């Protein structure tokens, strides 16, 4: 390993890191928003919408992100809809992640027992209060492990962005290896930056999980 090379590469990686992190997190926030809406549509069996939501979940959960990104990046411009690469990445990640988040949140909503809802109604809560103060927060506590796992999964999926020539970490590493053949340095930096990106999420995730474990059903 050559420290000189590392020093030289570092600024390039930093830039790629920021881009990856930004696109990744925008995608994750999008995924979360989509996940909630889709989970509500399915859980409440909203006419028509719940059907569309189910099709969406199956479609996006069962196709690779790479294919989805290719579709958005290369196929949409053919019908006159061209989107910048970074937006493509975030939207693609959001759509993929939305299908996973939806499943996680929906199973949380479904896990709240009917008897739980009845005892809230018996206390005089209206249906809306029941959902706001009991079902939704309870479902979210139940869904936390799934949501954390999805966030980590989605951050790792950002490595596919390079395929639509987004200058992310993966792209930068491949690019440098192709140009200068300093393979070891390029790969070590790649791993280090991915760890910097993921480790805090992982640690924070397990802290949150531990805290909500007490608040979930059972025991």
């Amino acid at each position: 390993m050559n420290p000189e090379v590392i020093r030289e590469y570092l600024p390039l990686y930093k830039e790629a890191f920021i881009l990856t992190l930004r696109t990744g997190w925008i995608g994750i926030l999008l995924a979360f928003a989509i996940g909630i809406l889709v989970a509500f549509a399915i859980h409440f069996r909203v006419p028509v919408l719940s059907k569309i939501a189910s099709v969406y979940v199956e479609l996006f959960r069962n196709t690779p992100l790479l294919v989805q990104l290719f579709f958005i990046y290369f196929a949409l411009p053919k019908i006159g809809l061209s989107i910048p690469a970074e937006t493509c990445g975030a939207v693609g990640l959001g759509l993929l992640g939305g299908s996973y988040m939806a499943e996680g949140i929906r199973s949380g909503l479904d896990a709240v027992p009917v008897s739980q809802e009845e005892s809230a109604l018996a206390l005089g809560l209206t249906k809306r209060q029941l959902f706001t103060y009991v079902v939704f927060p309870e479902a979210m506590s139940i869904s936390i492990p799934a949501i954390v796992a999805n966030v980590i999964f989605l951050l790792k999926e950002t490595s596919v962005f390079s395929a639509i020539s987004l200058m992310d970490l993966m792209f930068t590493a491949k690019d440098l290896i192709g140009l200068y053949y300093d393979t070891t340095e390029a790969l070590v930096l790649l791993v280090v930056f991915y760890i910097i990106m993921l480790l805090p999420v992982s640690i924070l995730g397990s802290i949150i999980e531990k805290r909500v474990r007490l608040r979930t059903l059972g025991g």
Partner: protein
Amino acid sequence: METILEIKNISKRYDDITVFEKISLTVKRGEVVVIVGPSGCGKSTLLRCINSLEDIQEGEILLDGVVINPTSKDLSQVREKIGMVFQSYDLFPHLTILQNLMLAPLKVKKADKKETKKEALELLDRVGLLSKKDSYPRQLSGGQKQRVAIVRALMMHPEILLFDEITAALDPEMVKEVLDVVLSLAREGRTMVIVTHEMQFARAAADRMVFIDGATIVEEGDAKEFFDDPKTDRLRKFLRSFSYD
């Protein structure tokens, strides 16, 4: 004594099964009515009908002389006045014990927070669970959870309490701690309708016993007479199934 709850000729059916047919029952203020009967005779269903968790096909139910209308917008206002505790406690797992007790008064009654907290702590103390105020339901035993569930119902100042086999899911050693709470509520003159399989407790708590079997009320009356001198063969047979001699 004034009548609080009046059940008039109600019938309840599920598609092809008739759970009960034209049942009538009146509960006066301060009265403790205990309902017993074989499994599946409709005891839970009756309590659930009172609270409009189930609809009825015939008859009507009046609370304070006002008909409970299951489709009305004010249903939650009626339910406020009826406290109900279920076999499965159903505390809200994501809230602490104190938060469990305060949720409905604060959100439904828009009660004062300070007052509500004070009352919650007093009631918790009364059932011996003050030290658990910041615990989550998961950290409590079944008997403790059930005592909290009773307090949670009391927090709404209900006019009548409905208890559906609240000790049926508990380990035997926890049954007494819960029934003691119910007995003390009975002694302070609360109006209650209790479904239970604990005959000893029924005898101690009941002002009036009701025996349901085969879709109707077969026998009802004063607790002492009910146990010592049952009038119908069906009740005699039912009571015998609880003794070992």
